[in-house]
């Protein structure tokens, strides 16, 4: 029941390699990794160390954060190569002898240092038809917790865009104009699975949102700090609905055996 704080890792000085830089005219990340020695305190997360650097070494180091409680999804960055929330990544869980590398999300254009331009995501969201109930008399609405559960899993999303940063379709292939990315697949799934929503977004999901670009690698799910099962519970059921609607069984079969 008592706190366990391992001293071995916490009262040490850690070596941080923090990206500092500015974008070129295309938003490319131009800059260098700067070395900072940071004396750690028990229980610190990466964001504590970044704040220490700001207060003691580099007052203009740019970092985006709000809550420092893993609730707002502002502080996404790549820590030792893994897209993560800086305020949720504990330092005493990391190897003591290696430098800790902190870089901005690679998939998005750079603004400065650790801050990237995520405005594309907000543009995508605007294209999605919002919740559309059959009637507006809420007093008559009834649905049960098990129906809510399925939708609430997706509504846990804190819009950290870590899944967007991770997904190879965006990260490596830059299909920003063709694929909405995992975050908005679950936004769509949430609307489609809402027990009272009557809009039909399947054509949109196939043609505009580009669900076909997802090849179910599940990398997004692995990194989601909210542990949303993006692929299994969101994308795959959506894909099934799209398939049911748009592909008749014969075409499907031919597709499967390579004759389609």
């Amino acid at each position, binding site marked *: 029941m008592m706190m366990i704080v391992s001293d071995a890792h916490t009262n040490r000085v850690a070596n941080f390699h923090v990206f500092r830089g500015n974008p070129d005219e295309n938003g490319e990340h131009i800059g260098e990794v700067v070395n900072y020695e940071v004396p750690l305190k028990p229980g610190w997360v990466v964001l504590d160390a970044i704040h220490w650097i700001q207060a003691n070494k580099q007052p203009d180091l740019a970092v985006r954060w709000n809550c*420092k409680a893993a609730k707002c999804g502002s502080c996404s960055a790549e820590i030792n190569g893994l897209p993560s929330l800086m305020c949720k990544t504990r330092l005493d869980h990391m190897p003591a002898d290696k430098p800790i590398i902190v870089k901005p999300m690679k998939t998005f254009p750079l603004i400065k240092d650790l801050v990237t331009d995520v405005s594309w995501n907000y543009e995508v969201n605007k294209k999605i038809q919002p919740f559309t109930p059959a009637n507006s008399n809420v007093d008559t609405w009834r649905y049960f917790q098990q129906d809510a559960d399925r939708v609430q899993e997706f509504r846990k999303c804190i819009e950290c865009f870590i899944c967007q940063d991770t997904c190879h379709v965006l990260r490596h292939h830059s299909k920003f104009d063709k694929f909405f990315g995992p975050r908005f697949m679950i936004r769509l799934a949430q609307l489609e699975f809402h027990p009272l929503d009557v809009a039909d977004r399947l054509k949109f999901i196939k043609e505009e949102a580009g669900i076909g670009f997802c090849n179910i690698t599940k990398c997004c799910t692995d990194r989601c700090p909210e542990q949303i099962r993006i692929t299994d519970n969101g994308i795959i059921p959506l894909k099934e609905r799209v398939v049911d609607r748009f592909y008749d069984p014969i075409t499907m079969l031919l597709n499967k055996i390579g004759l389609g």
Partner: protein
Amino acid sequence: MMSSTEHNYETKSYDVIVIGAGGAGLRAAIEASAQGASVALVTKSLLGKAHTVMAEGGMAAALGNLDAADGWVPHFKDSIRGGKYMNNWRMAQIHAEEAPERVKELELWGAVFDRTPDGRILQRAFGGHTYRRLAHVGDRTGLELIRTLQDKGIHSGIDVFMECTVTNLLEENGQVSGAFGYWRESGRFILFKGKSIVMASGGIGKAFEVTSNSWEYTGDGQAMAMAIGAELIDMEFLQFHPTGMVCPASVKGILVTEAVRGEGGKLTNALGERFMKNYDPERMELSTRDIVAKAIYAEVRDGRGSPNGGVFLDISHRGADYIKRKLPSMYHQFLELGDVDITKGPMEVGPTMHYTMGGIRVNPETQESPTVKGLFAAGECSGGMHGANRLGGNSLSDLIVFGRRAGLYAAEFAKQQTEMLPIDNEKVKGYAQALVEPFERKGTETPYPIHAELQHLMHTKVGIVREEKFLKEAIAELAVLRERAKKARVDGSRAYNPGWHLAHDLINMIDASEIVAKAALQREDSRGGHTRLDFNFSDDKVWRHRTSVASRATDGTLTVSYFDKPQMPKELVALFDKAEEKTAFETEGKF
């Protein structure tokens, strides 16, 4: 760095400018837009990230889904009693009456609340609420609220300005004319011309060392509004939430939702005693926050605290499945940040600065400032609704009730204006010059250590318990910090420069802090979120009827005076019987 003589800025014009995109700002913007106004929604962080996103336990509304006896009257009475009768009675009434409609409207816009067995919105018990009243989504109700309003807002024709900080409000002869600020990304300046303004910028918690609040809580709205003639009321009343995390140091202050107690969590001291029986035997853990916070403070002071200077809070008897379903964020928060499995044993908790009860003085019906025409305020930056102590869950409902009203009346005000007021360009240039001036300073100190000292000062001398001696010292030390803050050096360029942003925010925090300290010094009385060790009782004859009003004098000094507050009409007073009134006070003076 920019040359200091020439300052360019872009100019935008709107009927209504809403500053802040938390629950209050978003709801105001949606309403103003629905009334046909053109609306700018300006926020210093990204859309959907405002402080509101952190709210956990729920929003209070007398839907009566579980307890049919609930209605606006019990909710009104609970709010007034929780606020130690200091609330603006009319706001408390409007809030209780309108909250159910506003919550249902959220459902209409796509919110998915937890359900009752018969498929309606589930409600949970919370401190100070007589009935099960809080509509909720596990322990992430704020996220549900903000995302619902965000998704509604982006289809409402509102122009959103993200990561854009407003630094000054503009007025002509006591009427608002616009707002000035900068883009955080580039540091470039922007001028908004507007017919009316809704301030929805949140609280002042970042002036304190141990706080549950986000970085945005620097008192910008309070300071800016005062600068053009608005008044702040009740600023001595700060809510220290009884249960923040206490260790490790990194997470000190992070909130442990009251829902833990709402779901049956028990508080014990180092002796294993359920100590709330000594402070509020009837309501125990579900007493109001001010009482539980001071009880924990007293237990720790008297040597019955936990190893890390808190007390124990245990929910493990509810079983792992239940806890993971109803309190999932708490489960993960403790497991990942605190190395504690709350399904197996207790957490250590202690008070954390949580909520600013006071704020911009407004008309209870319209949310307009009585002293500045066209300036409206809603949400945590406004004052009056919660009196001396806010009940849990009453903020989220406050945001949607008064956010909507502020948007409605701001749009109406804008409609009555035939044209935009002229903008004094010289004034704007002065504001721009003041913003870049820190780059020219040669001092050695950056704003960061000054901020840390401010937080420590407020925590130790203007915190959960207060005394004349320390309040006087604090006021003197704040003056010194202000001088240091005016000299704080800023490095680098204007592009996304947190040091520069802090240099400016710091002055706002010092303004707000000074008012809290001055109001606290004058109130020789203890009630709700204000406890004086040297006046450790509720002096109802003198103080129950008085409200502090702060403003900026023409010479720039911040002054606080006390006035009689509006009298509750007889028919509402009649709702309270004598016995009830007594219980609202009897726990004071035990600390």
